[in-house]
């Protein structure tokens, strides 16, 4: 169940943009910006306000990789796995990250980090690239990865 405060927050975000043509994506972005994810319990309210079925809203939320179904860990690390980064060692960087965080992607063993692949950050001439808590980093190797993740961990 959503708390009453969360529910009201969702409803006011929906109300603010429901007049837009094609309002659903902007609304979902606003909800994720505010809550960090799109709670399944919010879909009914969104659907009703936009005169859609709950299934349609679920279909949209689940189609797009960007929308989260549950909150991420306090630290989010995204490593680019696309070709330009592969050419400079992104696969090895990913393997390093997996062993470091003891995960195959997703939550780390200690729950502190969410590790995700991303497909292109547009930093292809300074690859490999990654994002730590929305901050971009380029020319990342294993050492730089360890430094950045440790620094972000102690800042959190």
């Amino acid at each position: 169940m959503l708390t009453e405060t969360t529910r009201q927050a969702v409803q006011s975000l929906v109300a603010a943009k429901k007049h837009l043509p094609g309002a659903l994506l902007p609304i979902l972005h606003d909800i994720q910006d505010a809550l960090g994810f799109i709670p399944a319990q919010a879909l009914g309210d969104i659907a009703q306000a936009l005169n859609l079925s709950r299934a349609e809203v679920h279909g949209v939320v689940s189609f797009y990789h960007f929308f989260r179904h549950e909150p991420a860990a306090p630290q989010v690390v995204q490593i680019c796995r696309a070709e330009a980064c592969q050419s400079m060692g992104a696969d090895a960087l990913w393997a390093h990250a997996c062993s470091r965080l003891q995960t195959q992607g997703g939550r780390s063993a200690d729950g502190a980090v969410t590790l995700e692949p991303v497909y292109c950050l547009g930093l292809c001439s300074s690859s490999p690239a990654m994002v730590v808590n929305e901050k971009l980093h380029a020319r990342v190797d294993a050492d730089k990865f360890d430094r950045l993740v440790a620094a972000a961990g102690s800042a959190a």
Partner: protein
Amino acid sequence: MSLQIYVPRDSAALALGADEVATSLVAQARQRGLEIDLVRNSSRGLFWLEPLVEVQTPAGRVAYGPVAPEDVAGLFDAQFHTGADHRLKQGRVDDIPYLNQQERLTFARMGVTDPLSLADYEAHEGFAGLRRALSLNAAEVVQQVLDSGLRGRGGAAFPAGIKWKTVAAAQAAQKYVVCNADEGDSGTYSDRMTLEGDPFMLIEGMTIAAIATGATQGYIYIRSEYPHAVAVMREAIGRATAAGFLGADILQSGKAFHLEVRKAAGAYVCGEETAMLESIEGKRGVVRAKPPIPALKGLFGQPTVINNVITFASVPIILARGADFYKNYGVGRSHGTLPFQLTGNVKHGGLIEKAFGITLRQLMFDFGGGSASGRPIKAVQVGGPLGAYVPEKYWDVPMDYEAYAAVGITVGHGGIVVHDDTADLSQLARYAMEFCAIESCGKCTPCRIGSTRGVEVIDRLKSGDTKAEALLRDLCDTMTHGSLCAMGGLTPNPVLSALNHYPQDFGLCATGEPHV
């Protein structure tokens, strides 16, 4: 007079510490009692030198890079603000060969101006194209674009003027202009650089398209992986609207054009134009069958101009300097310039705007200086994840849409990813199938199922089952001819080019030279 110092705000510079360098510059200047005017410019596109700091001197702008925050004190000690020598000094910007050997038309302002300064933009030929367009009638504007020979820069290379003419001729109460800024292809960032580094140019190009076709509402669909681009574009639209370049009455012409950014949500297939339209409409990004073409029945069922960022961004200079000026660049039926993006395992990767006709070898070696690893270059993927792996025998083919097509490869959007000899092309082919499986919208079977089967068949081939080669070719044939859009239809490009040109990576012996 205070010192003018430039530190780029482009994502690629930020990812290498440009903000920290800027902070350090301000702090050091204050300590030394120097008054500085810090401008956050866009990037020159010389990414191995980022963060590239520039100082204004009587002899012109002088560049230092790559600058780390801990270099800043030493730079001041060496009097870099007077253009003095330092180990990071790259010389006068205008003398850097990588830059002065380019033909920057679309990227002329890149790295020069403050991206969000309207005054800067206008001082560098900004809005000259729009003003000219407003002095012509709509048909004349379309004719300029037709005469320029401009073709879609997103990859498909369809003549932009023909698309515009179709929309202009369509009768409807509401028409739209949509910019596809869902630049999801690895090895490309020219759209990102434009969105972040010269946003008014895109606004100007789209406004000219609106005037030419009678559209009054526009959308820019930007991928969620580009948060800086989204923020800059939104700010730029606000400023342009407040200054009367957008809105209900553009420059007192009586013409209206409203523009809005829509943020995508991480679906690669939404770079396909009809999936993008579905997404803007608030739906799953599922590809539409064509016809009807979007020019007649596009966004919300209305006539819609859809072009990629660089296509729209090429329009202002065509209007400002005339179709002939632009058309005279290039070769054959590939007119104008293309911002090539030299990426991956290359020493000097960056943005290289050149007229069509340059070769891969010139780009990779004359500009790029060879591989970053120092090892031999083995394969080059041109035109994104759906482009072919190009072996050395084609590195001297002039980059021109038709010359490339004649040997079965594509120029696409000019994204170039270099791989050295440690690359396993069977692995890259498998990745292409895997990526297609992850990103397929699911509407058509060849793409949705074919990509998953493709991964399996490549695994079989790799495990020594050579009979799987025929199966893989057959599967690629089905995907090429049976898929609804380019996602499934072109995924065989990287796969078959890898198989044809690098059979040994699949555990096969070389078999002559089949076509890509």
